[in-house]
């Protein structure tokens, strides 16, 4: 299929800003999502650095307690709702899911563009809220404080409500695309594992996101009309809000991590040059994780005054998440076994994912154990745990995917050694920043305070210095990514020797992806016959 005549690729054809803003091409919409979310990643990252600066020394280092409360709220809300939820499904998923199943576009291209603009509208509302009176509730908006706080809670939750719609429509679009637009021969069991992961993610998006919609709506009504459902003073129950919130937000954790796992399942077989071990096990464990994710939300509420019955149920159910997760880690490791491993940057990130996500996952089991959680709840142990999952997992997966697919998306190779140095800085910086926090949390340092007793000073200093390594790593990455776009030369269609469909077409792809609809005849990771 290669070697067809050079028609304009999707980046340059058609031309003009207007053609971008009104595009219905899934690849362009994916890139627009990526640019937007990466901007928010940058903003959220700035807040993270400021938080770490304040915590560098005990006492007031940089900002007052009120400012700190706002900053950690901004960091959480921006990173969760505007970066980590949309970045892989809506950016990379949008770009690659249709190509990987041999489709010309997603099922509903105009809806796809609409969900991008809905996302922008929601993000704009939230940013407006941050600039108006800010918010100091934390990204969780727990009642009753969120009912009383005199900050812009209504605006920011309205923003979350609107962004939820965008997430629902994206998920809906992907499910229909996977069901109805697979090319001839592309059976469910021949789909690449990234598609399986995005499919499982989309199921969660469709089932869980409406609940955050009604939750934020009720919170807004609580503030505007005093409906009292979450307000104990009016007969309601403040803890009920936590149930509502986590019924969405726990599955949302899997909206964040499943696509990252999908990318790892793509990268590992390509750079180990082996057929993936346990294809079906990985595919179905994605669905299992999606299903179980709805049964475990109460583990966020072990110390909220929840009933003993619920505590026990949720503690046991949470343990079950470990099974499909461990199946995945086992299969990835088994794929590496006796593989012909080449340590290109995407592979480095994939291996870091295995290392750090395993730490994040196992510490999650500590927290799932009821009695241990009572000690560790709301300490830095929890902070370290979910950063190991979210940043050590999802962000590492994202970076693996970005480096892996960058040549396909833009037709340019990045400078390999710059990328490796940047990886080193990020790997060291991340572990310095967050591994220390396991100790801090275990020693009792609570989260969400701008200050701490001097006994914790040493570890906090190391953590803050680690955040500067991260800054350096990401700055270098931004530099070499942007620079690669202006370098001469063109990436080959298949620089890594991948077997999935996206590598069989031009880099960058043409507007409708395939000159003619392909017919698939085999499994996606068949490296027995690859020629390099």
């Amino acid at each position: 299929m290669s070697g067809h005549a050079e028609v304009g690729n999707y980046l340059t054809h058609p031309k003009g800003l207007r053609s971008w803003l009104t595009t219905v091409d899934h690849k362009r919409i994916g890139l627009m999502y990526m640019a937007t979310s990466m901007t928010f990643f940058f903003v959220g990252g700035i807040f993270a650095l400021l938080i770490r600066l304040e915590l560098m020394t005990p006492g007031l280092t940089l900002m007052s307690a009120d400012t700190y409360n706002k900053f950690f709220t901004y960091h959480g809300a921006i990173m969760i709702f505007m970066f980590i939820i949309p970045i892989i499904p809506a950016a990379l998923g949008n770009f690659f899911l249709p190509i990987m199943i041999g489709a010309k576009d997603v099922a509903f291209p105009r809806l796809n563009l609409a969900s991008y603009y809905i996302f922008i509208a929601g993000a704009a509302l939230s940013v407006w809220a941050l600039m108006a009176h800010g918010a100091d509730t934390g990204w969780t908006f727990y009642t009753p404080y969120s009912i009383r706080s005199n900050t812009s809670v209504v605006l920011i939750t309205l923003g979350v409500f609107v962004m939820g719609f965008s997430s629902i429509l994206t998920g809906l679009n992907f499910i229909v695309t996977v069901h109805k637009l697979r090319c001839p021969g592309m059976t469910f069991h021949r789909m690449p594992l990234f598609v399986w992961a995005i499919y499982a993610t989309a199921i969660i998006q469709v089932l869980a996101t409406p609940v955050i919609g009604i939750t934020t709506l009720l919170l807004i009504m609580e503030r505007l009309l005093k409906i009292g459902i979450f307000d104990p003073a009016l007969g309601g129950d403040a803890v009920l809000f936590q149930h509502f919130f986590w019924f969405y937000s726990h599955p949302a954790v899997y909206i964040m991590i499943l696509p990252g796992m999908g990318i790892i399942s793509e990268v590992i077989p390509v750079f180990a040059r082996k057929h993936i071990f346990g294809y079906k096990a990985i595919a179905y464990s994605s669905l299992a994780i999606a299903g179980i994710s709805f049964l475990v939300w109460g583990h966020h509420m072990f110390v909220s005054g929840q009933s003993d019955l619920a505590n026990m149920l949720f503690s046991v159910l949470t343990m079950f998440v470990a099974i499909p997760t461990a199946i995945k880690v086992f299969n990835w490791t088994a794929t590496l076994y006796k593989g012909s491993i080449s340590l290109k940057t995407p592979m480095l990130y994939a291996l870091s994912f295995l290392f750090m996500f395993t730490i994040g996952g196992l510490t999650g089991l500590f927290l799932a154990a009821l009695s241990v959680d009572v000690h560790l709840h709301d300490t830095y142990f929890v902070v370290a745990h979910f950063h190991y999952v979210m940043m050590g997992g999802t962000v590492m997966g994202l970076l693996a995917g970005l480096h892996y697919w960058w040549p396909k998306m833009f037709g340019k190779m990045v400078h390999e050694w710059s990328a490796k140095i940047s990886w080193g800085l990020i790997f060291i910086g991340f572990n310095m920043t967050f591994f220390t926090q396991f100790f801090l949390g275990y020693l009792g340092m609570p989260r969400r305070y701008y200050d701490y007793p001097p006994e914790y000073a040493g570890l906090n200093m190391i953590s803050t210095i680690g955040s500067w390594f991260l800054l350096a790593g990401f700055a270098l990455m931004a530099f070499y990514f942007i620079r690669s776009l202006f370098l001469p030369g063109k990436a080959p269609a298949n620089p890594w020797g991948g077997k999935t469909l996206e590598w069989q077409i031009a880099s960058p792809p043409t507007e409708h992806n395939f000159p003619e609809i392909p017919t698939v005849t085999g499994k996606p990771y068949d490296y027995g016959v690859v020629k390099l």
Partner: protein
Amino acid sequence: MAKGHKFGGHARAYIKVWAALLVLTAVTVSVSYYDFGDWNAFVAMLVATVKGVLVCLFFMHLMYDNRVNQVVFISAFVFLAIFILLTGSDEWFRREMKPVKVTDTASAALGAADMEKLMKAAPELAAKGKEIYGVQCAACHGADGKGDGPAASALNPKPRDFTSGVWKLGGTPSQVFHTITHGSPGTSMAGFASVSVPDRWALVAYLRSLSPNKPEDTPETLKQSGVDKMLDQGPGTRDQGPKTTEAIPVSFAMKQYVQTDVGVTDLTVPPAGTDSVSLGQKIYQSDCMSCHGFQGKGGIPVSVVGFVSEKERATLKTKDFAVSRQTWTYNQAAFIDLVSNGLPGRNMPGFADYSAEEWSALYRYVQSLRAR
């Protein structure tokens, strides 16, 4: 569009379903006038579900639709059921919340036999008492118990000189224990109920060892000081109340840890220019000093945050006023707001019962401590 034609012309079926829905509506309304007790909700939901299924199967022709659409739609109800049941497993099964009784947790933790042992002024108890005395009492009562501590000059009446042999509120062990626990009304002597019971008995032993006058307890003094309730005087006589206490409040447990923490320096330095006692200073010394220190230098632990090692604790300490840059340092309204609401996360209680004159006096005094 082959599939579209498969179920064309369903008008007659629709009208049948419509009739069934109307009948079921009539049924559910009329049934609601009869009382089935606990089954009311069940009957109503059963009828509603039959109606709902009819709408889904025929009006929405889910019956003829493909398997994927059927699974998709049914999954909504499955996950809704999960949502309801797991939320219910909390909301409907919460333990009844009772207010925690905290009257005398400390003594409840001790057996009556231990109490009697503690009451005997053993020498090793006095030695321990001396250590505690150094932290808790010496600032006012002086290192040697002569009532000449660094803070004594600011106080009126002067702190007790234990070597004089005079006991204002009685010198028997139980009376001294009572005074330490509840303080001495009308003086600067505060109650130290936050000190654990064994430690208070150790203090009793030490204080009595300083005094030439050591009266012994009689049943009357025991009764008068309330100590008899802590002692086992045969079955039925002991007050069983405190033993039933279910939970030790966290704040209480914290205090237990905090008061063994040493390194309190501010208490030993006399404040500057203490000759005339201003109103602000008076309020400060009665309400604020115990945590913020004489000079507002802070550094006094008020809460245990965690354990850095088995012995070393990470504690929350009060701040030096001078280093703060918050609004209250230059704005009296903000100061009043802060002090009346307190800082819950930092164990600062709210103090709101001041007159306007007292507020500005306290504000000025705290400012003067900052300026120092």
